[in-house]
């Protein structure tokens, strides 16, 4: 059978995997941003106990591989009666990992707001909260856009690791087909194309966005 036929025949499966990859990435990224933001706020406002916990979480999450995190969630936790289905494991794992990356991104932005801006805010009598609301956050968010953009791409790529917990996303689909029909050239080709379709446009959009934001920020 020709390559083209192989590709055509496997298209519906790849489509499913593609949609699943997109969906898991989407949920995971939104979740990561929320978790990351919460951690950053806890840190920024130096909330007593929670702030420390958030810091510990960030270090654990950032310094261990997603694969091992997933193995834990999927294979090890059920031993103690805590069981999530595969897709939930994937999402939870991605958020667990992404939350710390996003949090670092936000922190970088907040820290990047210049000291003089903060002092100027204080000098006109802004309270801590007002300072955050009118000065640090608006500027910090724009400063953190590049880091967030990089994280989004990173997290989408990380979904490929979901293959180890039997989620039929793109990579899993390809590896599975290879195992059954041995047409690795064709299936790997499809796989690369699948990721390229998601990531190339996204990367271009994010670059444009980043430029726009940067232009808007600097120049004072």
């Amino acid at each position, binding site marked *: 059978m020709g390559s083209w036929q192989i590709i055509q025949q496997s298209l519906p499966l790849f489509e499913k995997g593609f949609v699943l990859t997109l969906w898991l990435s989407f949920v995971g990224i939104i979740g990561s941003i929320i978790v990351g933001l919460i951690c950053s706020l806890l840190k920024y406002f130096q909330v007593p106990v929670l702030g420390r916990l958030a810091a510990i979480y960030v270090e654990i999450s950032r310094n261990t591989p997603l694969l091992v995190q997933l193995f834990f969630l999927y294979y090890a936790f059920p031993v103690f009666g805590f069981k999530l289905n595969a897709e939930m494991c994937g999402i939870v794992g991605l958020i667990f990992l992404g939350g710390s990356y996003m949090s670092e991104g936000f922190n970088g932005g907040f820290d990047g707001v210049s000291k003089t801006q903060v*002092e100027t805010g204080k*000098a*006109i009598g802004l309270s801590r909260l007002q300072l955050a609301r009118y000065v640090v956050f608006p500027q910090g968010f724009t400063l953190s856009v590049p880091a967030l953009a990089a994280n989004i791409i990173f997290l989408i790529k990380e979904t490929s690791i979901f293959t180890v917990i039997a989620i039929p996303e793109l990579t899993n689909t390809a590896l599975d087909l290879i195992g059954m029909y041995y047409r690795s050239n064709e299936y790997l080709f499809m796989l690369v194309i699948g990721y390229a379709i998601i990531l190339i446009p996204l990367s271009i959009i994010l670059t444009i966005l980043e430029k726009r934001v940067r232009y808007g920020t600097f120049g004072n």
Partner: protein
Amino acid sequence: MAKEVIKVANLEKYYQKRHVLHEINFSIHEGEVVTLLGPSGSGKSTLIRCLNGLEPYQKGDVIFNGEKVVPTEKNWQQIRQKIGMVFQSYDLFPNLTVLENILLGPVKVQHQSREEAKVNAERLLAQVGLQDYENVYPRQLSGGQKQRIAIVRALALKPELMLFDEVTASLDPEMVRGVLNIISNLAQDSNMTMIVVTHEMNFAQQIADRVLFLEDGHILEQTKGDQFFKQPQTDRAKAFLESMDF
């Protein structure tokens, strides 16, 4: 005699181990213009930053309007509304328009009505010749314009005391004059109480009622303005004045 706006008593300041202000004592009365002079690193910026609580100090007191300031962040936040401060770097908030920059303090901090505050802001903008720029973002302004807006922003809070820290130091020479003129007017026409750190000796001479000369964190002399420039009391101040004109 006019009332004492601010008084500093036995102030001592350390950066970690480093002792940068020694036994600072002075007071300023309403309407008085004091210029702080001294070589680089002598502690001028540090001193005026202590006056509105941007720097903590380790000993001594700041007495504002006759009341000793209990130095908590909360108290300082209250007092800062009555003390305007302008820095060397024109620190407008880049994310806000000129008008929003100006109104932020009056509306959000002092809870003035927006309309009222806006009327006042526009009056001040007109005074510095920038009435047409209210809806512009800071990046669209020149350095001199930004610095004038920064002054307006501080004035919009109707402060009782203004602190200026080398406000022309990062301006192009041709822009310096416009900004200094505005401060002169403020001193002469509006009778604003103020402390001015500057390296522009001509300007200092012109506006100073009194000069505080600082070196190594000590106040070396406190002299009437005209007298200081004609005949400073200390040799150090004399040397300093000489070095300032080529």
